[in-house]
């Protein structure tokens, strides 16, 4: 019964989100572009407006008991540019991170950033096209990322390359760490927890949990980009994985007896 009531609420939130994205792409972005000529200024104005919209959206999600977004109060990000590397359990982590921090540019998959309906708003906020990675393409994404960091922005990368598998994490690619090394900026690992799991890769909207989802951001202390990018990626991945398993052991007891949960119970 509750599921029957839940589905329209989830649909309304999705309609609000995507409708808002299209509205911003077609009505807000051209207005901002007219008023602000400087590309960096234009991007920051766009980001501020989108951040406010995300906060309103989160307020709607909270009011409808769909989702609560929480950020570790004690943890602060460095003031200057840095590379944020986060695990990616849910589609909502992106809005949570972008709503919580100033001037963050994200590396975005081509399916989103090149979308004709809502792609313009993603591009207007200075987010970076990850490209298809075919052949030798990819230099443009790297150059754009370094440029954003030079301009003082923070860069958000999901080093797993796609959303995390249920109650787990994929191996980290070294791209984000190589960018941090080349830009000489610190890496800030960010643990994202989503309990119960929601909006994972391939999950249909009607499978949305019946209880309010708690999406929490836990930024970790900054790590200096030292050593090779491969060793740095491995080190940060191992540390984040350990913390992630720690939260699973506490939060997820029985329902998802996943490999990760079993591992955390039997660390043989």
């Amino acid at each position, binding site marked *: 019964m509750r599921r029957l009531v839940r589905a329209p609420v989830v649909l309304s939130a999705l309609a609000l989100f995507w409708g808002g994205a299209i509205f911003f792409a077609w009505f807000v972005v051209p207005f901002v572009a007219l008023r602000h000529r400087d590309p960096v200024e234009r991007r920051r104005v766009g980001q501020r407006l989108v951040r406010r919209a995300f906060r309103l959206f989160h307020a709607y999600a909270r009011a409808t008991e769909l989702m609560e977004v929480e950020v570790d109060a004690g943890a602060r990000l460095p003031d200057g540019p840095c590379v944020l590397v986060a695990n990616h359990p849910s589609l909502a982590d992106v809005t949570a991170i972008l709503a919580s921090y100033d001037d963050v540019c994200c590396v975005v998959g081509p399916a989103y950033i090149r979308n004709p309906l809502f792609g313009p708003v993603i591009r207007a906020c200075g987010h970076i096209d990850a490209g298809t990675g075919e*052949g*030798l*393409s990819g*230099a443009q994404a790297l150059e754009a990322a370094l440029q954003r960091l030079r301009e003082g922005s923070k860069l958000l990368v999901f080093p797993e390359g796609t959303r995390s598998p249920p109650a787990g994490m994929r191996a980290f*690619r070294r791209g984000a760490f190589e960018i941090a090394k080349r830009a000489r900026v610190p890496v800030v690992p960010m643990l994202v927890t989503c309990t119960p799991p929601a909006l994972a890769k391939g999950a249909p909207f009607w499978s949305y949990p019946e209880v309010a989802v708690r999406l929490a951001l836990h930024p970790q202390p900054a790590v200096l980009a030292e050593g090779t990018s491969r060793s740095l990626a491995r080190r940060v991945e191992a540390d984040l994985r350990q913390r992630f398993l720690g939260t699973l052991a506490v939060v997820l007891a029985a329902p998802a007896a996943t490999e990760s949960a079993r591992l955390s119970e039997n660390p043989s």
Partner: protein
Amino acid sequence: MITREQTLAELRALMAPMFELDPAAIVVEARLVDDLDLDSIDTIDLAMRMQEIVGGRIDESRLRKVRTVGDVIDVVLEMRGAA
């Protein structure tokens, strides 16, 4: 006129130290990712060095089609021919 052989020799000299490869493994048919074990960052670095060699920007759509050492040679020769 620079030949394919000369370009291959040039690429060997460039790629062997850059990616810690055996120069003998750098042959025309070698696939960059599958045979030479380059990852995405390596391929970006290679593309950037290619742009330095030819002294100009190589179109992203052209770079997307590069799979083998032979493809790299083709792009370098094409860009030099056009210059």
